[in-house]
């Protein structure tokens, strides 16, 4: 980075000089090599412009540093820690890297490794997903540090999940901008002009501060933007030089901007009134909620609105929006009879109103409507305030009759009051009658679900309904929180476990990037640990194998959770996709020696997840294939988790 101001007596470059002795030696090498080549005495092969690290540089990067001259003054990264500490960030999951060594050192020494506490991660994707899961329980963001290029590349999928799931994560990437002074070799390979470009399409905001005061403004701004609905990840590129240099006296006193939370955007009063009019006069209003409730209050508000209208509620499951014990809770098919649909923070309104059937001619999908043509659609969705062009998470365009680019939870109080005022007195009896019908339908639905759960009850591998209820028997008296996304696969916990509080179910990854489940569950369990709750993770096998190192992070930092493997020994979604295409093409699917089409199974050999977990400090047991053995194993595992340690059971299950 260019420096216009006079450099201090002790500069970062002098500080680096000792460490870069080997690098300096390397710097002399190319001219020598060139001279040898030009006099014709040695026929040297042409060398690539981007050289791999020499042994000296690799040693400088990886070996114990030599004794260095002591740096004077107050390190700039100490001031950065002062800034971070004003924002009440409790943890910092991260994989260590040289490009942020200065702020790392400040955090653990100057900052005392508190607020935030450094949590050692084995993969950047795991660190981001931990922050993701943590927020969905705690409602507070975490920050992560990552190496500017390769580390951010690892983190990218996790950031995309957070973006799609509207979750704030503060990503700080170390980067050494000064091409004339940074160490050659690996540190230069790991530098870029603009590291944030990699994630700009799926972050709310990013910056590259060039002074300490700039950092203070950027960091507080990043926090504020991330925490304004719609929430989302933000990125800061942190120059290695800025971290390492001492604070310079420029005659300007550094200050830390005060953070004042931004109030969430509410729906326009006219639009709220029109939505209330449509709902109050509807014959069969249906509410569809996806990421509507982010707190207990959000759940309470949605219940209040539904009861006033006696409207059926479909919970899409982006969050735990509406209790599944409530008689107004209905399955997605309920939209078919609606004359008004209120969509709250929907990922995909088009898919509420339409169906895509992956079963047309030549394998091309078919679109059909799921609603009546005259059905009125109302949308309250803060995501409309945050749409970018490249990644397609905004889904297909759906025309609606009332569109409010606003936060649903913040808008519900006004909408409730407007609905109360809009209900005509002669409609009240009809609304009451609607409730009676809903109670009957709900009771019948509960019967059907339980009878369906009884199918294959004694099967081996174990049925997913049986596994869910075996787990339930051991956690039902605890203040539990389901911290996994595996409910998406077979959904039994969502259908059979009473879910009434917002932390009972946390929703899925958002971007459906596989590998989110295990680390997000650890992050959520961390937040639950601090709140005294019991975390349950129904852990998909394929998901765990992306970055199983997070198991070690959980053990290392005493993060308890009960992990029960949903081990169906395959990438099951893909098993079905390849089978589908085989059928369309009139070809028998080639299974090889597995059960699913080649490339989709995780067997031969079967992975011993219990041994994997045990090797990383977990209590573990398995494989469990006989349903009769599951209950006793769960009893042992729950006792371990209650003692404060993580425990894993490797359970072989039915496919879904």
């Amino acid at each position, binding site marked *: 980075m260019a420096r216009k101001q006079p450099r201090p007596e002790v500069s970062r470059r002098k500080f680096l000089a000792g460490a870069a002795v080997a690098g300096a030696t390397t710097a002399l090498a190319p001219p020598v090599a060139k001279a040898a080549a030009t006099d014709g005495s040695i026929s040297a092969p042409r060398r690539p412009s981007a050289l791999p690290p020499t042994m000296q540089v690799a040693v400088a990067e990886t070996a114990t540093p030599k004794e260095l001259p002591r740096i004077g003054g107050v390190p700039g990264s100490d001031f950065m820690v002062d800034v971070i500490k004003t924002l009440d960030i409790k943890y910092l999951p991260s994989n260590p890297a040289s490009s942020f060594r200065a702020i790392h050192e400040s955090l653990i020494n100057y900052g005392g490794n508190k607020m935030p506490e450094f949590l050692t991660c084995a993969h950047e994707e795991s660190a981001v997903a931990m922050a993701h899961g943590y927020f969905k329980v705690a409602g507070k963001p975490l920050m992560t540090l990552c190496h500017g290029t390769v580390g951010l590349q690892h983190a990218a999928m996790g950031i995309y999940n957070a973006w799609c799931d509207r979750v704030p994560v503060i990503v700080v990437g170390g980067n050494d901008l000064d091409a004339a002074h940074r160490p050659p070799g690996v540190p230069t390979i790991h530098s870029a002009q603009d590291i944030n470009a990699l994630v700009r399409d799926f972050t709310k905001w990013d910056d590259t501060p060039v002074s300490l005061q700039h950092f203070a403004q950027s960091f507080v701004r990043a926090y504020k933007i991330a925490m304004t609905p719609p929430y989302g990840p933000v990125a800061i590129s942190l120059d290695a030089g800025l971290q390492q240099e001492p604070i310079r006296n420029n005659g300007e006193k550094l200050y830390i901007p005060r953070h004042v939370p931004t109030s969430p955007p509410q729906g326009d009063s006219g639009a709220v009134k029109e939505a209330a009019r449509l709902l109050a006069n509807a014959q069969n209003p249906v509410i569809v909620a996806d990421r509507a409730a982010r707190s207990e209050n959000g759940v309470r508000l949605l219940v209040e609105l539904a009861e006033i209208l006696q409207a059926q509620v479909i919970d899409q499951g982006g969050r735990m929006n509406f209790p599944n014990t409530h008689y107004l809770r209905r399955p997605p098919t309920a939209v078919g009879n609606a004359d008004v649909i209120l969509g709250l923070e929907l990922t995909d309104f088009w898919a509420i109103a339409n169906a895509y*059937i*992956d*079963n047309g001619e030549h394998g091309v999908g078919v679109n059909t409507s799921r609603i009546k043509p005259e059905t009125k659609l109302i949308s309250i969705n803060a995501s409309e305030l945050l749409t970018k062009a490249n990644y397609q998470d905004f889904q297909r365009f759906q025309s609606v009759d009332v569109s409010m680019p606003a936060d649903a939870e913040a808008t519900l109080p006004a909408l409730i009051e407007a609905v109360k005022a809009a209900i005509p007195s002669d409609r009240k009896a009809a609304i009451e009658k609607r409730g009676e019908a809903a109670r009957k339908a709900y009771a019948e639905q509960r019967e059907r679900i*339980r*009878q*369906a*759960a*009884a*199918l*294959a*009850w004694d*099967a081996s*591998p174990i*049925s*997913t309904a*049986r596994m869910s*209820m*075996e787990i*339930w*028997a051991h956690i*039902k008296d605890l203040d539990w929180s389901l911290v996994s996304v595996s409910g998406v696969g*077979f959904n039994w916990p969502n259908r*059979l476990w009473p879910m009434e509080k917002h932390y009972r179910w946390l929703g899925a990854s958002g971007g459906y990037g596989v590998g989110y489940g295990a680390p997000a569950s650890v992050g959520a369990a961390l937040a639950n640990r601090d709140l005294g709750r019991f975390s349950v993770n129904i852990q998909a096998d394929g998901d765990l194998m992306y970055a199983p190192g997070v198991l070690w992070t959980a053990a290392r930092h005493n993060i308890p959770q009960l992990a029960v493997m949903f081990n169906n020994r395959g990438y*099951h979604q893909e*098993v*079905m996709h390849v*089978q*589908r295409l*085989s*059928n*369309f093409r*009139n*070809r*028998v*699917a080639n*299974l090889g020696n597995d*059960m*699913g*089409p080649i490339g989709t199974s995780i067997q031969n050999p079967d992975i011993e997840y219990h041994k994997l977990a045990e090797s990383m400090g977990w209590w573990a047991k398995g494989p469990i294939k006989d349903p009769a053995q599951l209950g006793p194993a769960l009893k042992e595992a729950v006792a371990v988790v209650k003692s404060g340690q993580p425990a894993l059971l490797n359970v072989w299950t*039915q*496919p*879904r």
Partner: protein
Amino acid sequence: MRLVRRFGPAALAAGLALGCGGAFAASAEKGKAAYIQHGCWQCHGMQAQGGPGPKLAPDPIPIETFTAFVRTTNRAMPPYSEAILSNDDLADIHAYLQTIPKPADYKSIPLLNQ
């Protein structure tokens, strides 16, 4: 186990529809293997209890309806043509589905009544 089934008029009609001609033997044992080999388990579970796809047993739909659906389908399930799933295999699969017993009433399962 190889089962020789006696079919009623409806099943006989289905047998004719399948082009097998007259009475034919359907094997539940072969059907179980075919159920796995042709990937039925992927969506319907190893015991046909259902999953992403609906349950197929107990009480499978009549074979003629079953056959018509498998060949054409109407929604999420990919169709299986005769070229990749023979009529005999399909009949065997149906025979296997018929052998799957009814589950216990959920009211008799303590874990489903917590």
